[in-house]
């Protein structure tokens, strides 16, 4: 193992542990200086770090006192997505139930027509809100053991609606460009774009919450 390989392996472990980039660079520079001096004395790097580099890297982070929180982007995005899917299903039922209750409570005239944009906004907005609640609740419950998950859930609550302002028109444009096709390939692309956008936003939310935490 060369010095570069040892530093790279340690750096990957520090990244996995959520050590901020600046601290990773400082740790790597310090370690490199020490290893280079030892190698110049004729001691190979792999003999110095006897055993698993990742164990050494973890120990070094703990002893250095560097604040770090594991990012777990994939786990958080997947959990939020699963929560959002459940939320969509619940949201459809809730909105449909509310609609039926409203119809029973209010005897609207037969020629009453709500503007399409308002009706669609209420319908899809309602479902979206329940989906967002599903994502946030899912993350808070299922990942309650993950450090700083409360901050991340709060960031998701803020960023997902903001991102929807950009994502929804883009998806509508795509649908319009494809002639509002219901072909399976087009629908799958729309679903994939939605999932990718949602995953990107939850990742951004996690990153934002960790940046604030580690700076604070």
């Amino acid at each position, binding site marked *: 193992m060369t010095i570069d390989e040892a530093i790279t392996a340690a750096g990957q472990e520090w990244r996995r542990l959520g050590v901020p980039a600046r601290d990773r660079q400082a740790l790597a520079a310090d370690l490199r*200086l020490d290893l280079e001096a030892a190698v110049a004395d004729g001691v190979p790097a792999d003999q110095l770090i006897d055993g698993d580099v990742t164990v050494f890297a973890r120990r070094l982070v703990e002893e250095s006192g560097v604040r770090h929180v594991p990012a777990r982007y994939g786990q958080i995005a997947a959990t939020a997505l699963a929560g959002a899917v459940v939320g969509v299903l619940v949201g459809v039922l809730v909105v449909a139930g509310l609609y039926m209750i409203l119809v029973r409570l209010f005897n609207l005239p037969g020629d009453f027509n709500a503007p399409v944009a308002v009706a669609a906004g209420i319908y899809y907005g309602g479902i979206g809100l329940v989906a967002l609640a599903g994502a946030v609740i899912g993350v808070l419950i299922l990942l309650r053991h993950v450090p700083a998950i409360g901050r991340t859930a709060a960031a998701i609550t803020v960023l997902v609606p903001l991102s929807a302002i950009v994502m929804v028109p883009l998806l509508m444009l795509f649908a319009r460009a494809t002639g509002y096709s219901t072909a399976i390939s087009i629908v799958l692309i729309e679903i994939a774009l939605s999932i990718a956008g949602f995953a990107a936003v939850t990742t951004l939310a996690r990153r934002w919450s960790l940046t604030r935490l580690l700076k604070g």
Partner: protein
Amino acid sequence: MIDGGEADRQAQLLRGALDMCLLALLSERPAHGYELVQRVGEAGFPSVGYGTIYPLLTRMRRLGLVAQEVQDSPHGPARKVYAVSDAGHARLTDWTAQWNEFVDVVGSVLAGGVPSEARSQQ
């Protein structure tokens, strides 16, 4: 020859004393990382490697017990040389007294006697 069980036992004993040993060795003479590993080995702990000592040095630097200085070397790359700080010297004095007291107590217990302090409390 130390078998696995004895090696574990020695590692446990050393865990609480290694930082003190490093401070003592550095107080004799500043050293760079690998040189300190060699000196620890020569002192009687050959199984203690760089992977143990370097993180410990990092902790002692964080606590201000050890200071490091990068020195240019005529024979190779620059070297980080570690030296005991004033706070480190003070801590070493405290730790040494604490250790001597601890050894006295353990020695008395192992010899079958009751430490003098414990006797006076009875």
